């Protein structure tokens, strides 16, 4: 696991170094702040995705949940004039409900996670577009207080505009990440998630209530997606229902996979996921800064990097396994 973390961290550093050498704008305070901020937002989604991937599942609906929450939050506050004190709990409860629905369909109806969340992907975006008649939603100049959670830059190195200000979202991410890491590594439920990802049948034969744990994983994922969607819209102040959050699930899944969550389940570290999320953000930034004319093929570049990463990972795994087997056979 540690070797894997070092590997992905090294890739991140390499991409950073390359970009810094190729573009003098990379190390500008504003750019760094922006990178940290975006890493925080995508990190939250990726942690959610990681919980599902650890159990051997997949959630393709993350981007659409981001969209639905991101659209409903300003819509209910601005168009419907609801109090934010009601809207925020409502959209979060809706995210939880979405997760419960996914989990129930997967465990009780025995549907494929891929199919269930693919339908979710189509469904939630469609609903978001329907409710708003496809009109962009935003807070205008209102909800300043609420928006601070996503837009505030904390003057940790003094208030001079030239120095680095810590985006408030970073604090949010740190809290979410620490809670997630404690949950995964220090509670029996986290262990159960890892166990059922490792071998669901053996987990069942060990007395783990597998169905409940799977539902829990999808609830965590959808809830963090909803929470992330809230932060995204508070930050950007505008959500176009037709493309808000579009393909974010792919960034989240990619970050989780790069961070060491095997798609076969049973593995995962929260720190790895965060580094994975940072890598996704920096890669995108690199293309913007160094090769702006390649922006059209951003997905292709990201896809290629992930593929290479996963191939390297599999190769390393095989080499290690082969060595272990050889060592075992040569032992008396």
């Amino acid at each position, binding site marked *: 696991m540690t070797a894997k973390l070092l590997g992905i961290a090294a890739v991140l550093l390499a991409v950073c170094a390359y970009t810094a050498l190729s573009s003098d704008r990379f190390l500008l305070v504003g750019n760094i702040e922006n990178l940290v901020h975006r890493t925080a937002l995508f990190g939250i989604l990726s942690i959610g995705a990681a919980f599902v991937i650890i159990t051997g599942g997949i959630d393709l609906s993350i981007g659409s949940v981001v969209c639905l929450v991101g659209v409903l939050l300003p819509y209910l506050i601005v168009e419907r004039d609801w109090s934010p004190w009601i809207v925020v709990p409502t959209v979060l409860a809706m995210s939880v409900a979405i997760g419960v629905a996914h989990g129930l369909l997967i465990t009780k109806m025995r549907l494929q996670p891929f199919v269930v969340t693919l339908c979710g992907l189509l469904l939630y975006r469609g609903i978001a577009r329907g409710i708003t008649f496809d009109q962009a939603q935003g807070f205008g100049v209102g909800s300043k207080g609420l928006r601070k959670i996503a837009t505030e830059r904390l003057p940790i190195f003094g208030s001079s505009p030239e120095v680095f200000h810590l985006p408030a979202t970073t604090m949010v991410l740190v809290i979410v990440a620490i809670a997630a890491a404690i949950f995964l590594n220090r*509670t029996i439920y986290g262990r*159960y998630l*890892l166990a059922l990802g490792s*071998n669901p049948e*053996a987990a*069942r*034969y*060990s*007395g783990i209530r597998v169905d409940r744990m799977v539902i829990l994983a999808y609830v965590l994922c959808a809830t963090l997606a909803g929470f992330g969607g809230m932060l995204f819209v508070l930050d950007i102040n505008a959500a176009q229902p037709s493309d808000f959050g579009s393909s974010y699930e792919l960034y989240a899944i990619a970050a989780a996979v790069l961070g060491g969550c095997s798609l076969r389940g*049973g593995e995962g570290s929260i720190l790895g996921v965060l580094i994975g999320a940072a890598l996704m953000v920096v890669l995108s930034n690199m293309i913007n800064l160094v090769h702006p004319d390649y922006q059209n093929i951003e997905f292709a570049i990201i896809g290629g990097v992930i593929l290479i990463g996963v191939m390297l990972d599999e190769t390393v795994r095989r080499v290690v396994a082969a060595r272990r087997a050889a060592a075992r056979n040569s032992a008396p």
Partner: protein
Amino acid sequence: MVVAAASSTATSERTPVLEAHRFSKQFAGIRALYDVSLFVERGEVLAIVGENGAGKSTLMKILAGVQRPTSGSLRVDGHAVEFSGVRDALRQGIALIHQELNLAPHLDVATNISLGREPSRFGFIKRAEAERQARKYLDAVGLDVSPRTIVSSLPIGKQQLVEIAKALSTNARVLIMDEPTSSLSQFESQKLFEVIRELRSRGVSILYVSHRLGEVQDLADRVVVLRDGQYVGGLSRGEIDRQRMVSLMVGRNLSQFYHRIPHAPGAEVLRVSDLRVPTNPRHAVTFSLRAGEIVGIAGLVGAGRSELLTTLFGVTPATRGTLTLGDQTRPPRSVPEAIAAGLMLVPEDRRLTGLLTAMNVKRNLSVASLRRDQRIGFLNRSAERQISTAMIRLLRIKASAEQVAATLSGGNQQKVVLGKWLAMDPKVLLLDEPTRGIDVGAKEEIYQLLHELAGRGVAILFASSEMEEVQGLADRVLVMHEGRIAGELSRSEMSETSIMKLATG
């Protein structure tokens, strides 16, 4: 004996259709078949019998081209051949009828019969021709159904005949049948035997694998007996009887392997009343276990031993019946409930259902006790460490706590699965094939441990296909046949013959 078999083929005046010479097969270091030779004449039924794991299926698979032998040679009509796949075998006229039928259930009979060899013109299937051919082969097996019938709408016995028709349509001269009657009714079996006799009279050779010695006695022209992957004897027409087959199948002396520790059983701890297992709901199972007793479940493959154990453990809920454990009487519903009541299962397939293969030894040992030892939802890491250290020492697991379970030897893996439950202080321990695929040393240690557990009052119920194990370990044995308990034998009544008699029905 092997040499004798080989020389008898040489003296036979006719050339056998099929002749296997000194076949051996190794799987990952395990010897499934060793130096087996046999031949089949044109138009004869050769039965192959043996206990579970005797190597029958492996031999059949090699003859049908499904697997390749590690060594040995094959002759068809006196010519040396080598099969690199099922297609090669089919080309030589050798077809395997699988135990689980290999038909496409949603397609019709004609399509199934001509599957992969459809009569066609310019890539279009000549449907009428396919149906005409299908009818011809359906007649050959005496099956009166339309070629347009969807296969899944036919009863299993008729599906089997479709499979045979399909094999004949490939011009098969040797049909290999692996337990063909295992899912047939009495009537369907009789029908099948008629077809087999008819085929034999037309010169088709049949290799017939069955556990049902009665059938073999009725049907076979010759019998070959395998044991532990080796040829142990052959019987010709006049010599075939049940006694002879059983004694060849089991004929070995109990080793000095089992140091029995006599234990006086205590009070009844488990009573199973009128339990109906979902896979076999027609038969109710009733029995009880006493503290400190070791009870074996014997039976042939498919007798329902594993299903009984997994139902007791709550993996598959029972359709009816109750389980009385201590002062509670309830239907077995879920695994956590069973564990809470002190009933635990070491399952048959370690890699599939026993071990968290990607996790380390410590996490495997502690997984069942995490809930009990939790501190308001948090892992109790010192308890986890203690369990791991204690179990590694107690069970003499030759691995570190941090080693990944998948990398352990079979014996150590089985000890880890056992250790997981020992940490939970079981009252009743169920074990399915407790020593399958593990080496002799670890076997002995596990037997030793089971005796110790019984000595401490744990009731032990184990299912095993190894006669030797059942007799060596059990205080009494429940023999299962087709989902029900066909009989119970006390230690003094237990013999391989008495067990086989009950198990073959």
